[in-house]
């Protein structure tokens, strides 16, 4: 086994050496341009994707080269168990990954830590082993795809993508990674049989392959439905050449959710007022024409950085002091900002919660309670607090604190005469003069409770009227997936209600449900295709999904309103899938357990299960051979003259 492994190492040694060198150089250049571990989420994701691609391509290449029957025979026809041969290839790949990926990253981490003067947290040292696991997981995927003959196997790739989006903390990042690695490793090993490209013999392996394939198919089929329906609408409305001129915002019927979502901010607020039949709402309409309407923009701070979170940190926690030319980087280990000269890179001190810099004024910096992120190089936002930082005075003042059980979903957003912040339950409106002139704790001028869970709110529109503010909530962003309802509520807030509890003085002037605009079957299409897979997706996403604001909760799933007709349709589709599977099983001469396995799978997984069956299950060659032989004999006997035996 060791020689086989050594052979693989010899095979790729030059390539690996070149790659490792290039990798090291790229990392070194990156470090000199910008701190390696402070890249934003987009760049980190791109980097991680590159490593994943590297692993995938290597697995594909290594296994594909052995696909030539004679070389395959050379590889496997030896007195070694298949497991050891597979292990030899995988171990060689692992050693190469260590040399090409892990070693350069580790060297660069150590270099940054010891020689660059930049602060390196313990979490940064997790990057090298994490990427090693990632590369090996995708390597296994590549092996699985290359060892099999079915191109649908590529859909197993849905599995790691699903798990790796998790923003796990500290050593816990290895749990989902390990699950994926073991899953894909098992599949690759199961596909690595003496019979190259042969079917997966173990039912567990088949199940392990079909589940992620079915899961990916659910989205592929769902997207196909969206594509077909959109194309149908465009062609029906504008003809076959109407793709470039079709405007969706003109398509939706007035009063539907998509219609309101497509409207401009002032039109959408006016729409909200028109929904009410009260005198006040009608009286406000003319005023609205003269008002300035603004929409509370994103980004939605749905995911705060968590302590020891190594990757996918959505928000920067880096401060730039341009005057003193200092870059302040937050350390998760110390819960303090570490300063480095922007030119020299040399450390200049640590900064604490109250803005105190180490060594200045003889005070020791106080560590932060939560990992903050920086907004506008001025505010430090943590889940419940917003602090304003003055780098000249080296102070940090608490400007606003949310009540317990509330977490910011939007920190300060300034718009002319208004400063707005939002928690997951309440909207806070402040006087901008308080923010600009004061330094102490700010009190909201007005508050209003959100009409629904924050994740279901599609738009928040705010207009300053003569003696009040109008706030219109367009609710229903999750209703297109079948969760929660859709409605528009417009609230009037009289000016001068500062310090009042939420909703004090707030008056609902108009509220009405919004029609969905999409037919029920379209909204529930994933449920119709496969209720099991859809709920499995929702459940797992609820547990480990990245965006707290967009994912559903267990309560949402339980309370999800599904029309009776959809239930009946789903049941019918599941039964039809099972019948389809039975018919296919008959056509392919599958017997006994094989037949039952696929029929049950189609029944439980619905249409994706049936499609996976159609692509993955092989014909029963034993039966087929008998059939071919009998027909061939019949032809020989019936149509051709009988030959005498030539056997000696």
């Amino acid at each position, binding site marked *: 086994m*060791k*020689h*086989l492994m*050594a*052979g693989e190492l*010899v*095979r790729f040694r030059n390539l690996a050496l070149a790659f490792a060198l290039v990798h090291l150089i790229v990392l070194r250049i990156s470090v000199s341009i910008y701190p390696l571990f402070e890249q934003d989420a987009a760049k980190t994701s791109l980097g991680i994707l590159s490593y994943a691609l590297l692993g995938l391509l290597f697995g594909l290449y290594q296994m594909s080269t052995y696909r*030539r*029957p*004679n*070389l*395959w*025979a*050379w590889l*496997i*026809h*030896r*007195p*070694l*168990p298949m497991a050891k041969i597979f292990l030899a290839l995988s171990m060689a790949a692992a050693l190469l990954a260590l040399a090409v990926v892990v070693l350069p990253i580790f060297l660069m981490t150590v270099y940054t830590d010891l020689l660059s003067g930049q602060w390196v947290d313990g979490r940064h040292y997790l990057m090298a082993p994490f990427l090693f696991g990632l590369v090996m997981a995708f390597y296994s995927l590549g092996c699985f795809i290359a060892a099999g003959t079915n191109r649908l196997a590529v859909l197993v790739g849905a599995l790691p993508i699903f798990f790796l989006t998790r923003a796990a903390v500290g050593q816990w990042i290895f749990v989902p990674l390990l699950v994926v690695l073991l899953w894909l490793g098992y599949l690759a090993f199961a596909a690595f049989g*003496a*019979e*190259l490209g*042969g079917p997966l013999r173990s039912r567990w392996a088949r199940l392990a392959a079909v589940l992620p394939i079915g899961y990916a198919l659910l989205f592929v089929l769902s997207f196909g439905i969206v594509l077909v329906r959109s194309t149908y609408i465009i062609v029906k409305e504008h003809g076959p050449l109407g793709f470039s001129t079709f405007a969706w915002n003109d398509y939706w019927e007035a009063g539907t959710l998509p219609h309101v979502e497509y409207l401009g901010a002032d039109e959408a607020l006016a729409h909200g007022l028109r929904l009410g039949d009260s005198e006040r709402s009608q009286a406000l309409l003319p005023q609205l024409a003269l008002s300035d309407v603004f929409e509370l923009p994103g980004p939605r701070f749905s995911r705060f950085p968590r302590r020891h979170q190594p990757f996918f940190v959505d928000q920067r926690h880096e401060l730039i002091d341009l005057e003193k030319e200092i870059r302040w980087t937050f350390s998760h280990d110390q819960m303090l900002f570490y300063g480095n000269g922007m030119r020299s890179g040399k450390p200049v001190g640590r900064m604490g919660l109250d803005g105190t810099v180490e060594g200045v004024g003889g005070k020791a910096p106080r560590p932060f309670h939560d990992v903050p992120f920086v907004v506008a190089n001025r505010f430090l936002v943590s889940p419940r607090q917003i602090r304003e930082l003055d780098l000249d005075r080296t102070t940090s003042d608490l400007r606003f604190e949310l009540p317990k059980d509330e977490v910011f979903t939007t920190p300060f957003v300034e718009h002319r005469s208004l400063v707005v912040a939002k928690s997951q339950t309440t909207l806070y409106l402040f006087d901008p003069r308080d923010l600009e002139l004061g330094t102490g704790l700010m009190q909201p001028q007005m508050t209003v409770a959100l009409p629904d869970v924050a994740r279901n709110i599609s738009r928040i529109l705010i207009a300053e009227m003569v003696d009040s503010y109008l706030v219109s909530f367009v609710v229903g962003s999750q209703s297109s997936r079948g969760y929660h309802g859709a409605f528009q509520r417009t609230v009037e807030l009289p000016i001068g209600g500062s310090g009042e509890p939420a909703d004090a003085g707030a008056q609902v002037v108009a509220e009405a449900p919004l029609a969905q605009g999409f037919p029920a079957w379209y909204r529930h299409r994933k449920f119709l295709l496969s209720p099991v897979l859809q709920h499995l997706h929702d459940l797992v996403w609820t547990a480990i999904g990245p965006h707290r604001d967009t994912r559903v909760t267990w309560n949402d799933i339980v309370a999800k309103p599904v029309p009776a007709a959809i239930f009946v349709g789903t049941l019918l589709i599941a039964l039809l899938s099972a019948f389809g599977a039975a018919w296919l099983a008959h056509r392919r001469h599958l017997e006994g357990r094989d037949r039952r396995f696929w029929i049950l799978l189609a029944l439980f997984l619905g249409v994706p299960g049936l499609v996976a069956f159609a692509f993955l299950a092989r014909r029963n*060659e*034993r039966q*087929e*051979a*008998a059939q*071919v*032989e009998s027909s*061939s004999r019949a032809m020989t006997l019936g149509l051709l003259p009988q*030959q005498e035996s*030539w*056997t*000696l």
Partner: protein
Amino acid sequence: MSKTIRSEYTEHAIETEALTKCYGRKLALRNLGLRVTRGGVHALVGSNGAGKSTLFRILLGMLGPSHGHSRVLGVDSTELDPDTRGRIGLVTEEHTLPGWMSVRSLMALQRDMYRRWCRGTFDEVLGHFNVLPEQKVKQLSRGERAGVSLALALAQRPELLILDEPTLGLDVVAKQAVLESLLFAGERDDCTIVYCSHQMDEIERLADHLMILEAGELVCRSSPEELWRRVSCWTLAGFAEAVAFNAIPGLLSWRTVDDREEVVVLDQDDSFGQCLRGLGAADVHRRPIGFDRAVNAYLSRNHTSPSQPRN
């Protein structure tokens, strides 16, 4: 045939029973019943697409049969254990070896795996081909690769050696070296060699037993001498009248050479001349026939084209 992975000494190195393999609607092997006794060189002959490579791949467990069973050295080929694999040597037609490895590292790789590895055999066989141990496989010519491939297979001292057209594309010198190596191994070790080739001179020289595979079926099983003895060639000036094709007993092939008709027949003695004359043939003579012509006639017997021989 009961399935077992337990290796036991059997009289036959290879046994197949009702072995069938189909690729979609195409039957590659059809109810093949084959028994290869231990010892000696067994030649497997067949035209392209006859199912030889499919048979080898099934025997080595690299392809599942559609129907039937096969056993190699007493072990079901779908369940070949590492020990049994170690007792089977294999040389393929392309001599595909990992190009990135040197001959020495290939030897080291194989040496540690095979208990009966014989360095002397390896060096001796390699000596026929002027290959240096430090040479990379990708630097070797086809003939040299064939030598390395054969040396590796023979040095394992296998109980069963499967050779799938090992001399294909080799020059005369390399071919000679391969044959000498095989003869050397066959004489010294108690090794069963299954030799597949289209080169009849090689088969005539090497083989103790001959099997002819056609369209997935075993159609002939004998010794090369026996086949050669039972096939005879006759020339004649022509027939007085048109003769039905199946009126000629044991006809294997019919062709025209230098304005004379030549028929090759099976199991006909000297009285066959009278038979031909009785059918209106003139100037009938028996001619000697070579082994390659005999096998070729046998292989092409179903392809004898004219339904009515010319006059």
